[in-house]
């Protein structure tokens, strides 16, 4: 019998209950998903069973430095996904703006942000996505930008559609945009997904629910911001991103 949404919901609830019990007995908050999260079936054979080996990093450790990117790595229109073809893409035009911060709340300056997403109909411009929804000849769904001096970024795009996948019977991903971030140390590398507020699919999605901590889950949901909306043009969403992990300056300052 194929796995049903009900089966997945039960597993999700059990793991969430176990997390909340552990919190009640003093366990620290888990900001990131467990790599071993069976409701997302693809994780079962793709997570290590041995514990991670802790590294005592110091400011000269390779991973506390980072790849750098510059003006040659992005073009002037990479931040505007609606201008990459001859015509306008179909869908609801949006801007997504926010700041890229480190775990001390400091802006990450001049660093590369990449994003990719499905089109308004919920289809990726990827040969292996055979979901029977139309491709949009005027939308690829890839954007890049360098953060400003205050860590700020802005992308103009269209709101992606929800789409089905094969984790279980009648599985649907809530609309989301994939983000890839670099910090001031390779340890701060992050790939994640941004969601849109009040999506009715949240409760059914084992990928979002893999973040078992309620407030951590909320950090993945952008806020609708009317001040970012532009009259007769686009709707605005705000989403700040906070990178985890130590950096060289973080460790140097911690030692003072």
């Amino acid at each position, binding site marked *: 019998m194929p796995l049903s949404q009900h089966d997945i919901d039960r597993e999700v609830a059990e793991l969430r209950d176990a997390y909340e019990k552990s919190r009640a007995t003093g366990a620290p908050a888990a*900001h*990131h*998903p*467990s*790599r071993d*999260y069976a409701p*997302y079936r*693809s*994780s*079962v*054979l*793709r*997570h*290590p*069973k*041995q514990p*991670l*080996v*802790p*590294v005592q*990093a110091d400011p*000269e450790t*390779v*991973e506390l*430095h*980072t*790849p*750098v*990117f510059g*003006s*040659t*790595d*992005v*073009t*002037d*229109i990479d931040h505007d996904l609606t201008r990459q073809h001859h015509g306008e893409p179909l869908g609801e035009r949006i801007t997504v703006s926010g700041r890229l911060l480190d775990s001390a*709340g400091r802006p990450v300056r001049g660093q590369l942000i990449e*994003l*990719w997403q499905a089109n308004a109909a919920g289809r*990726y411009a*990827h040969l292996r*996505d055979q979901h029977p929804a139309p491709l949009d000849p005027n939308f690829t769904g*890839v954007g890049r930008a360098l953060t400003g001096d205050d860590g700020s970024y802005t992308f103009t795009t269209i709101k992606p559609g929800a789409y089905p996948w094969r984790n279980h019977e009648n599985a649907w991903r809530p609309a989301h945009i*994939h983000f890839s971030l670099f910090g001031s140390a*390779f*340890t701060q590398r*992050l*790939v*994640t*997904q941004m969601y849109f507020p009040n999506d009715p699919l949240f409760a059914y999605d084992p*990928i979002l629910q*893999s*973040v078992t901590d309620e407030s*951590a889950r909320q*950090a*993945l949901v952008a806020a609708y911001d009317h001040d970012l909306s532009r009259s007769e043009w686009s709707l605005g969403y705000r989403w700040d991103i*906070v*990178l985890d*992990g*130590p950096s060289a300056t973080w460790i140097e300052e911690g030692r003072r």
Partner: protein
Amino acid sequence: MSSPQPTPSHTVGPFYGYALPFPGGGDIAPAGRTDAVTVHGHVHDGAGEPIPDALIELWQADTEGDLSGAPGSMRRDPVTGGYLGRNGVDFTGFARVPTDADGHWTVRTLLPAARPGHAPYISVCVFARGLLHHLFTRVYFPEDTEAHAIDPLLASLDAVRRETLVATAERATGSYRFDIRLQGEKETVFLDFH
């Protein structure tokens, strides 16, 4: 002021292939360098099957041990919006390569130098569909046996686990092989920097 909460990680998913990889993504060694080496391997899951939708990133020091890197890994063409490739001179220290249908990846690079008391290595970050949070590991090189004995990480591991971090020299081709096993027998050592 309290520190902000970190944004949770999510899987890279199956459809990053038209967005993140770029032409020349594995060419860390500037074109024409005669001392370039090839580092390659497969990525396997817990059933021993190759993973065709993993993404591997490498970050390393240059041959002098410098960790500054340089921009230009994914240099763009402002005329067409396409890619120009690297500029042939700068050492960016960064590679990004997707695995192919056989779960195989390849980069061409220069051997990094290390500071005293440490063995040279390349930092590796692994992303994949099914992997909710990326994993860090390291490629060490088999000829550095003396440095391995004093390297803080390698010296802390038992022999079986240590072996998963040391590439195999392939004499015939002059290349290094480094397989990554996410789970199971000979599971690669993955690292935690917190």
